[in-house]
């Protein structure tokens, strides 16, 4: 299981799409783990949305207890193996490491990967289901939030079923994060860990079409809505329908499904948007053989929402940036293929927007044609408004209205977690935040359905503290 079948072993995956960061060797992990100071009340724990007891798991690696390290990680974060690779650690745990001030921070992410890789390669089953409570939970979506909620509910003794619309479980970890950062085998192992607790994962099962909402509510005592978001919404730009126009989410999904798109080979590609998905789409295009990739953004580097390390990575990959450039329309040739992207130049006009970012205005007579063969839209994700409607919960533009601590929606049987809540201030749009929201929703459900004496499974000290504090706040 797991790492034995890693994507790098799969000859059908091109070298450019295999995981870039090498694993730590045993010796390197020993060296690095021994460097950790084992801080008390450690800032790295506080910086982790899931409150992984980082000094503890690192000490376990240092003392030859790698299984214990994996347990500590996965106990606090059911998608800890994925997070080891995709967390913005510079902004979270590693950013908080006290060694910033004296030498260099501990490479917590890579140590976390070392421990979870070990658990996967050894085929360890880290957790057991709780004694059955006779209650049933349905989880919509098998991404980080859904998987996390399902894992916790199973440990609380719920009978759990996950409904996943896509053919493969794992959510964005499986379909939306480029495989050279997060190979398929990692979320696959995390799904296996949850399935091993008796959780049934129904892939290819869309709530509202394969199964009706009513059927779902009839089948389960409680429901966790963790459906995430959809594909890139249409902008209504002229030429959007042309051959050679792509959706960034679908593009990345294709590279992860093993069906490598060939149409970008040799192409000049424009990527519209400047978030992390735009970087993913741009680097994917490059690795698919594009002759050049340009990120087109109407503001400047200072305003882009991609993480600084993602920006750096893109530059190293040879991605170009067209700042202060507004795409106006996509120009096609006679065959209906993309021939160019018509843009105008912008400049800051001295005004500051409500969000504190500089506003821009068009430069007169600056319209120009960017000669490209393909255009990739990375301009956000669609909201799942129909699903919220069918569930009959209060929502705003598809975003359920919830108690931000518990994820409880307007229906006392339905809780929500993960990216579907994005925009409500419930947390960052990160895998780790989604995992924490799933965990909290599960804790809230256990408290609501089982009462204060609900059977708490054995917890590691740090996460016990975290869970305890959630319970305290809920009461």
């Amino acid at each position, binding site marked *: 299981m797991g790492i034995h079948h890693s994507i790098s072993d799969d000859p059908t995956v091109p070298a450019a799409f295999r995981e870039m960061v090498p694993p730590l060797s045993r010796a390197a992990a020993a060296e690095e783990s*021994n460097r950790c*100071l084992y801080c008390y009340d450690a800032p790295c724990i506080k910086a982790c949305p899931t409150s992984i007891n980082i000094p503890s798991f690192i000490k376990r690696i240092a003392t030859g207890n790698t299984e214990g390290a994996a347990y500590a990680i996965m106990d606090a974060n059911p998608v800890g193996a994925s997070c080891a690779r995709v967390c913005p650690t510079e902004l979270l745990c590693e950013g908080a490491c006290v060694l910033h001030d004296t030498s260099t921070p501990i490479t917590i992410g890579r140590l976390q990967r070392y421990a979870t890789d070990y658990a996967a390669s050894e085929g360890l089953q880290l957790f057991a289901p709780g004694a059955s409570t006779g209650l049933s939970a349905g989880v919509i979506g098998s991404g980080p939030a859904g998987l996390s909620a399902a894992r916790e509910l199973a440990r609380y003794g719920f009978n759990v079923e996950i409904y996943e619309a896509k053919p493969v479980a794992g959510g964005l970890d499986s379909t939306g994060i480029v495989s050279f950062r997060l190979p398929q085998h990692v979320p696959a192992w995390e799904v296996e860990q949850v399935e091993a607790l008796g959780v049934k994962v129904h892939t290819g099962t869309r709530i509202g079409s394969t199964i009706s909402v009513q059927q779902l509510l009839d089948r389960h005592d409680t429901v966790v809505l963790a459906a995430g978001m959809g594909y890139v919404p249409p902008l209504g730009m002229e030429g959007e329908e042309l051959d050679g126009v792509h959706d960034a989410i679908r593009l990345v999904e294709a590279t992860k499904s093993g069906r490598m798109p060939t149409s970008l080979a040799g192409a000049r590609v424009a990527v519209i948007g400047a978030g992390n998905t735009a970087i993913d789409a741009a680097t994917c295009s490059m690795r698919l053989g594009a002759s050049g990739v340009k990120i087109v953004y109407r503001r400047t580097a200072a305003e882009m929402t991609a993480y600084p390390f993602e920006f750096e990575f893109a530059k190293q990959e040879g991605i170009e940036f067209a700042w202060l450039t507004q795409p106006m329309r996509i120009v096609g040739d006679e065959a209906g293929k993309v021939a160019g992207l018509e843009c105008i130049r912008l400049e800051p006009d001295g005004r500051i927007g409500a969000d504190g970012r500089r506003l821009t205005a068009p430069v007169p007579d600056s319209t120009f044609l960017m000669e490209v063969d393909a255009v990739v839209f990375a301009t956000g994700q669609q909201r799942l408004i129909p699903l919220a409607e069918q569930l009959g919960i209060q929502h705003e533009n598809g975003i359920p209205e919830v108690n931000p601590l518990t994820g409880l929606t307007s229906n006392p049987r339905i809780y929500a977690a993960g990216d579907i809540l994005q925009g409500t201030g419930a947390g960052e749009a990160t895998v780790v935040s989604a995992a924490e929201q799933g965990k909290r929703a599960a804790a809230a459900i256990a408290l609501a359905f089982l009462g204060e004496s609900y059977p708490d499974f054995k917890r590691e000290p740090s996460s016990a503290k975290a869970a305890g504090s959630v319970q305290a706040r809920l009461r």
Partner: protein
Amino acid sequence: MADLSISLAGIRSPNPFWLASAPPTNTGYQVQRAFEAGWGGAVWKTLGEPIINTSSRFAAVHYGGRRVAGFNNIELISDRPLEVNLKEIRETKKRFPNHALVASLMVEPTRQKWHEIVKRVEDAGVDGLELNFGCPHGMAERGMGAASGQQPDLVEKQTMWAKEAARTPVIVKLTPNITDITVTARHAVLGGADAVSLINTINSLAGVDLESWNTIPHVGGKGAHGGYCGPAVKPIALNMLAECARDPRVNVPMSGIGGISTWEDAVEFMLMGATGVQVCTAAMHHGFRIVEEMVDGLNRYLDRKGLASVTELTGKSVSRYSDWGELDLNYRVVARIHQDTCINCNKCHIACEDTSHQCIDMLTGSSGRPYLQVREDDCVGCNLCSIVCPVDGAIEMVELPAAAPMLTWNERQRVLAKLGADSIEAEAVEG
């Protein structure tokens, strides 16, 4: 550049770094390589009746990812014929006339055996002799090494026998596997020793394998205690050396041994009374070239201190080593945390809170920044916080003005005894 040469009871060497009698000095080839690398002297691996060694001999204690914090061995004395060793000693001395070449000896405790071996070895041209009364394993089971080194009368008698025959200086190597090493040191002196060297290795079992449950090391599934050395034993060796140094009855030069890995260690041993030092584990860990770093570091240190000769270091700290009863009970230090260098790992807090005197508070400043502060009134000056602090200088132990004049425990007891005597006297008068 300072003069690094020393003379230990008349045995001269170009620098104070000698290889101890051990595996590195087993052959002429090795000792000559060592001298070429820069070692000032070597004590040849112990000569005696040939023995048979086991396969699987060494083990080490690794700590916190660092190799060889301590080293353990069950190897015995030289397993090569005496004639071969003597021939190579002769060749080595001829090639390196200015280096110190000392033969370590161990024979059965009879006058005749000692006379015979001393004569044969001196004929080969050694500069001195070191009597091995310390080897803790194997040989001790046969009444030699530590077995004789633990009996002060045997130490004295055998030293005397060796001295009767010796024309070169005799060093007696002491075992640490004894309650008070000054007792055997004194008896070595009574027997006529020209110098003592200390310490030999400490009885040890390096470990137990968690999977097989065998001892580490094991010989076909069986283990036996070995001798422990390397960095971990340094504080034990340093204390034993210092105890001998401040004992006026151990009034002979001393060669310091025990975990010396760097020039800094060597300086400490010399400050505590050693004329020169002997090294083994560091060479076994890194090869003979490690002496280059020792010589260079020592040289620069002596220059920095403005000392013309390394011999000026010997014994400089001995007078500062005393009995607990002579320490000033009114001396006071407290911990002070420097906020500009503190990295907020909170290790001082939890160490103090859980295991010392609960006087380091975790506080939050007006800006919301966390900081640590010592309640100096409650601080006993134990040093624990500054020991666990990972940042040099972030916690300083600050000396406070004494609230009362110096008073030692011994002085206090004397005063109390006098007061007691006076009051008894007064009672007697009143009665």
